[in-house]
């Protein structure tokens, strides 16, 4: 498992599925047989980073869409991605 970094590229883990329903994100982790639900902001971040949008750009989009300071948005986004990589939902390269 690699540690996510701002410059990393993120993609859905090959054993995971992701879809958005009513703004929330659903990860289905087939290997573990588990399902994760993430809130709307997290779903937005996942959609953007897996669409190969650069991390800094995603953070800027989050700041523009939601009432959050840049430093906080960056820290929260990084924590989210770390957690999703650790859970096996995303892969970082």
């Amino acid at each position: 498992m690699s540690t996510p970094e701002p410059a990393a590229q993120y993609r859905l883990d090959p054993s995971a599925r992701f879809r958005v329903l009513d703004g929330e994100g659903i990860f289905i982790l087939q290997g573990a047989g588990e399902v994760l639900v993430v809130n709307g902001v997290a779903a937005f971040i996942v959609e953007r980073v897996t669409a190969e949008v650069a991390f800094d750009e995603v953070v800027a989009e989050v700041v523009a869409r939601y009432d959050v300071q840049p430093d906080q948005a960056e820290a929260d986004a990084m924590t989210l991605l770390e957690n999703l990589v650790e859970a096996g939902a995303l892969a970082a390269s």
Partner: protein
Amino acid sequence: MSALTFELARQRYAVENLSDAHRELVLSRFGELETALPPDPLSADAVRLRIERSLDTASFRDRPPGPTEYRLSVDYDVDGVQVAGVGFRARIDRQTLSTHMVTCRDDAWFIDGFENLFRVVVAYRSFVSGSLVLHSAAFTDGERGFVACGRSGAGKSTLCGLAKGLGLTVLSDELNLIRPIDQGFALQAMPFAGDFGRSRAGSTSLPLSALLGLQHDSTPRLGGCSRAQAVSRIVASCPYLNADPQFVDRVTDRAVELVQRVPLRVLSFALDTSFWKVLDHEYPRARSAVSP
């Protein structure tokens, strides 16, 4: 060698090439499902399970020492699903769901393995026919069917124990089937053993009145949850298929359809029977039973 035909949730299963010992064991567990009609070799409607006895004991997973629960090994490939457990291995063909089980056992390990395999086959066949098999606890007051989905540790068996104490009828605390009908969904227990025991084989269907998630709390109540949360609870409760790359998207689609028609609500309950007052009040009585 002989054959048996079973009917379960409107689907037929033909178990073939049975030795006398295997036949006796299968009947001891699933005899209530047997139909009078023999398997029709030309019939495509019955899923076929062929049992092959092997003398090569070394090539099978050995029995663990002492009584224990073990995890079934299920692997998915393009054409089939491979299942293996103590003393057996099997392959389920994706196109026909025809199943070939090879076993080196003639004892209780055989029938336990057969039951485990049968669960997988039934889950696939039921899904293909439009239903969903859920890890769940289900009970009824004779008119209304309540099903609470959840994985091990969610409180399914606990809830069933409390329901039984109230005089309600427990369907299953392990696997239950939800089948679409004209006016909603029907609920039916699957005859597979759970912590609470084995549900009666061939049980009839009931109207599904309540689709529930479970949560422990000191105060009984019903809470709403988002559709995403509801779908996640359903998908997480769909054994085998939720881990199958060729089925997981369809399972999710079906879960979305289900929660659109029957909202999932989260039942908070404590270790007492106070939850029933909440359910009894919140869900109106069904007007008629559904035919099996």
